[in-house]
Every structure is written in C-alpha cells, then in structure tokens.
C-alpha cells in the first residue's frame, strides 16, 4: 500500500550548556520568586562547562560513546566524569554558554539581543574557531551595546539580563510593550529554540555532505509557541530555522504533539517523500528552555549538580532511497487511536504489538527498542522514576505475556534490547530519537538489523483533552535498491 522507499541518511545532535539561564527556567524562576529557593544556593549547584562536557550521558548524546559502552560505565555518572572526552562528537557538539549567546545575537533579526562590547569582541575571536560559524555570521555580532545602555534596558524596559559566569554581559529585550506573547521571557524561549535548531541543522547538513540548497522541506517538531497575541503558537519555526541554515530552496511547517512530535514528524516527512512531493526533508527540534532546571530541587536536596542545565537539539535527514541508508518502514507505523485507552498496556499495544503484527513480526524480532530515553539520574532524585527502564519492563512484560520469552527472561530482554537513558529531559528531544544516530551507525556496521522507535505525548497537559498520544515506526536495514 505504500510508495517508494524512504531512508534516513543522517541524524545530528547538539547540546548547549546554559548554567546562568537556569534561574529563568520555569520551575527555578517560580521557586526563587516565591522565596522558597535562594538564588545564591542554586548557583552553588551549577556545573562548569568542562563538567557538562565530561558528563557521560552528554557524551552518549553527541555520539562519542555508544549506548552499549555507556551501560558498563560506573554510576553515579555525575561523580564519574570522562575527562578525556571532547565537546565535539560524530553527531554534533556541546556548545558553551558564551558561544550560545553569540549565535543568539547572530541569528536574531529583531534587535532582541544586546551584548556588551568587551563580551562581543572576545566572542568574535572565540567563534572564529567554530567550524560552522562563518565570517559573515560573525559580522552580525556588531560592535556590542554599551554596558550602561544594557543596564538601563534591564532597569526600565523589562529586558531580561543575560549573565555569564555570574557577570552581566547582555540582555534580551521584549518585542512589544504590552503583548504577553512577546515578552523578553517568551522571546528568550523562542530564540533559544530557533538557534539550537539552526546549529543542529548546520551540523546535519555538514555531516551528511549535502548542499543545503538541495533540501526541499523542513518540519520543526520543537515545543514552543511562536506568534503574537492574535495567533499564539501559530508557528512557523521550521522556516525560521531553514533560513539561517541556508536551506534557501526549502519551505517548511511545524508538526507538534508534545513529546511524540519528533517521531510523528519523521513519519510525516517520510510520507511526503514516499508520495513523491519531495526528495530531501529535514526534521528538526530545537531546545525546550522552560524545562531547564525542572527537577533542580531534587538535585539540590541530594547535593548533586543541577543536571538540567543543557538545551538539546536534534535534526534528521530523510531522503529518497539511496540503496544503502536504513529504511523507514511505512508499511506499518504505530498510532494511538482516540478510542485506544490510556493505560501503558493500551498504548504499547498500539505502538508495538499492532504495527509488528501487520508486518508479521514478533517482539523478539526487533533488535533494539528506542523509548523515552530520559536520563534517570535527572529524574530519580525528584521521585519521577526511571522512565526508560519502566518502558522496557513494559515491553518485556508484553513479550512474556505473548509467550515469546519466559518470565525469568525479562531482565535479559531489557539488557539486550533496551539501554539506559542518556537524554536531557527536553520532551520531544528525549522521546526515542536520541538513539537514532546510534541506530543508523549500528545498522550500517551490520551490528543490528532494526530498531523500533516509540514515542508518547502527554496531550492532557494543555487541558484540551484527557487523551495521551503515541506513535512509532520501524527503522530497518536497507536491502538494496528496488
């Protein structure tokens, strides 16, 4: 019933370390404002950039460590740092905060960002070493804004101060005097989504050795709400990202469904290619700023560093069949129907059992399952459980209930077909897709034949429905050109 094959050629991943922005994350900001957390106390738990780079889960995210090797590393990971690892990896990079402020300035088209002259001049030099930031990009840094002007904007014009290592280096401005959808805080959220999206798309295009002009379409699955007061959430983040990633011949739109958005966008993009509309489609997700520091209280309580100090970014290149890259099996994708029910059992029936049955496959025919891959070291101290492990237990239990494995084989099933979580808790970024880059490599190397990507979304958070969402697809080894 499906058209021509669609492949995934490349996946790119970036993290951006934002310790001085933790105070503006939704949860920390509310707790500080209510006087329940002292900013000075919170700051004692912030990590250095070197520690964020050496943090094992971050290294798995950018591809310097495989999930299999990661499973053997000593825990707790935040106490067992990997000092020999670099900020760049095969999938992308971990960008330090000052450079992130720089790209916010470079890719800001509306005078939203002001940076001080001394900070700008140091940044200009630093960014000259970045492989993806051009001299033309750096021209847009300008000369900087006098420090007094920045201070005045913060004091009188509701601009949000930007700090680096505790020092005021700039500000982000509101885009309108009295539009609640264009405040400095909202602009910060949206601009961070945009620049992390651009950065990761540039990595993707470079890693895939494709000219950005060849891209036909972009789908953004980022979790933000771009728009003014007459169309809050109207979008379109995809084109905003594509523009600065030089995809001049592409158009785009946004595909959203909370955390399920990325996998959903992959299926949409694959369908557009299979239907013959486009040849090259990029799915991109920028970082979700409001989630920064969401579980900081748990980390502080356990005397840990605040681990939610990185924004994520992910980009995926979908293409017509090249006879080699892994294939998105469009003969059977999983979807969670409105009538399906919300229990874990019902959701996994829809995402795992139903699609595999259509392909006449068993659960044990799948080499790896990619589920929500939240780093458990982030979630456990706040009592939110080990999300990936619970999901793997559920899939293993389904295999046992169907008689595919014995009840005593549950742990082995999880060890073999699962993995420990390594993704920052960034919603659509964490949902199954962090494994895609690793899966592409393992399939290409002949180590595994396939991976089932299953993502869930909490639609009820928006208070429009009590429903959840879920979506899945099988990525398979390419059997060669049809």
């Amino acid at each position: 019933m499906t058209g021509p094959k669609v492949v995934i050629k490349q996946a790119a991943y970036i993290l951006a370390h934002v310790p001085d922005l933790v105070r503006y994350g939704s949860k920390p900001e509310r707790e500080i404002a209510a006087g329940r957390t002292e900013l000075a106390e919170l700051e004692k738990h912030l990590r250095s950039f070197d520690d964020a780079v050496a943090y094992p889960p971050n290294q798995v995210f950018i591809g310097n460590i495989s999930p299999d090797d990661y499973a053997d590393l000593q825990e707790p990971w935040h106490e067992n740092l990997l000092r020999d690892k670099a900020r760049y990896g095969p999938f992308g990079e971990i960008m330090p905060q000052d450079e992130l402020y720089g790209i916010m300035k470079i890719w800001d088209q509306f005078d939203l960002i002001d940076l001080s002259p001394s900070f700008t001049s140091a940044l200009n030099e630093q960014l000259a070493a970045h492989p993806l930031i051009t001299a033309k990009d750096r021209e847009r840094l300008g000369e900087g804004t006098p420090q007094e002007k920045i201070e005045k904007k913060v004091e009188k014009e509701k601009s949000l101060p930007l700090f680096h290592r505790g020092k005021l280096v700039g500000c982000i401005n509101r885009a309108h005097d009295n539009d609640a959808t264009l405040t400095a805080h909202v602009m910060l959220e949206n601009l961070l989504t945009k620049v992390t999206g651009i950065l990761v798309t540039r990595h993707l295009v470079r890693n895939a050795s494709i000219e950005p002009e060849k891209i036909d379409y972009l789908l953004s699955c980022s979790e933000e709400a771009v728009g003014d007061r007459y169309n809050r959430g109207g979008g379109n983040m995809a084109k905003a990202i594509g523009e600065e990633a030089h995809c001049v011949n592409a158009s785009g739109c946004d595909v959203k469904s909370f955390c399920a958005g990325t996998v959903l966008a992959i299926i949409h993009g694959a369908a557009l290619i299979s239907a013959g509309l486009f040849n090259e489609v990029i799915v991109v997700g920028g970082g979700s700023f409001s989630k920064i520091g969401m579980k900081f209280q748990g980390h502080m309580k356990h005397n840990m560093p605040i681990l939610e100090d990185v924004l994520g970014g992910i980009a995926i290149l979908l293409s017509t069949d090249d006879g080699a890259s892994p294939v998105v099996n469009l003969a059977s994708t999983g979807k969670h129907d409105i009538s399906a029910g919300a229990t874990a059992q019902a959701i996994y029936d829809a995402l795992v059992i139903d699609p595999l049955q259509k392909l006449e496959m068993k659960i044990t025919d799948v080499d790896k399952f990619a589920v929500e891959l939240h780093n458990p070291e982030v979630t456990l101290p706040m009592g939110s459980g080990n999300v990936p492990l619970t999901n793997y237990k559920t899939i293993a239990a389904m295999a046992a209930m169907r008689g595919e494995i014995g009840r005593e084989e549950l742990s082995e099933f999880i060890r073999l077909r699962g993995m420990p979580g390594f993704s920052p808790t960034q919603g659509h970024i964490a949902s199954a897709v962090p494994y895609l880059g690793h899966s592409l490599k393992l399939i290409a190397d002949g180590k595994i034949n396939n991976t089932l990507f299953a993502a869930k979304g909490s639609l009820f958070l928006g208070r429009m429905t009590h429903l959840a969402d879920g979506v899945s697809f099988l990525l398979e080894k390419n059997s060669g050109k049809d």
Partner: protein
Amino acid sequence: MDQEYQATVKKLVEEHGADNLMMIIGAPDVEGAELVAETVTEGDPSYAGPLAGVSLGLPVYHVLEPAIRAEISEDLYKEHLEMMAMVIDPQELETALSKYRKKS
C-alpha cells in the same frame, strides 16, 4: 506529586471530607507510588505544593495491590492491568504503601 494534582486533591477533600475519600494510585513504579502516598497522607515532602504541611491522612492504595484487584473484574484486569503487574511487583507495592495506611 504535581502541584496542580495536589490542589485538586485538597479541593476534593474540602468538598467531600477525608473520611469519604480514598486515593488509588496508578504510578508505574514503587518509588513514585510512595511519593504520592506520602503527599496525600503526611503532606508534600518537597514543601512546594498546596499540600505542604497539610496531613490529609487519606487511605492510599495502588491499583495493582491485591485488595483493589479483588474489586476489579477479571476481563478489565486482563485488558488494562495484568501486564503492569509484571512490571511492578504488587506485593512490593503492598509492603510499601501499607506503611502509609498504618500512619493514617
């Protein structure tokens, strides 16, 4: 436990009285279930939500505990719960949550 859920539970207790209510938890792990149980019996342990310092003392059970399972038809149990009973040990849940029932 989410602050808005805490507010909902608090409001329900104000409307109906703690004696007329019971909390049935559906968390997918024992630690999560214990956290909810603690919040609706002794109060919010993080002291951040509406139940901070509020001891509601509600009777708490997890939906997979034997006492609740006995109230659920076999068909419904098979359709919605049987698989999760392999993921979390019902006996372990009972041991963990009975502590909070004794206190309330």
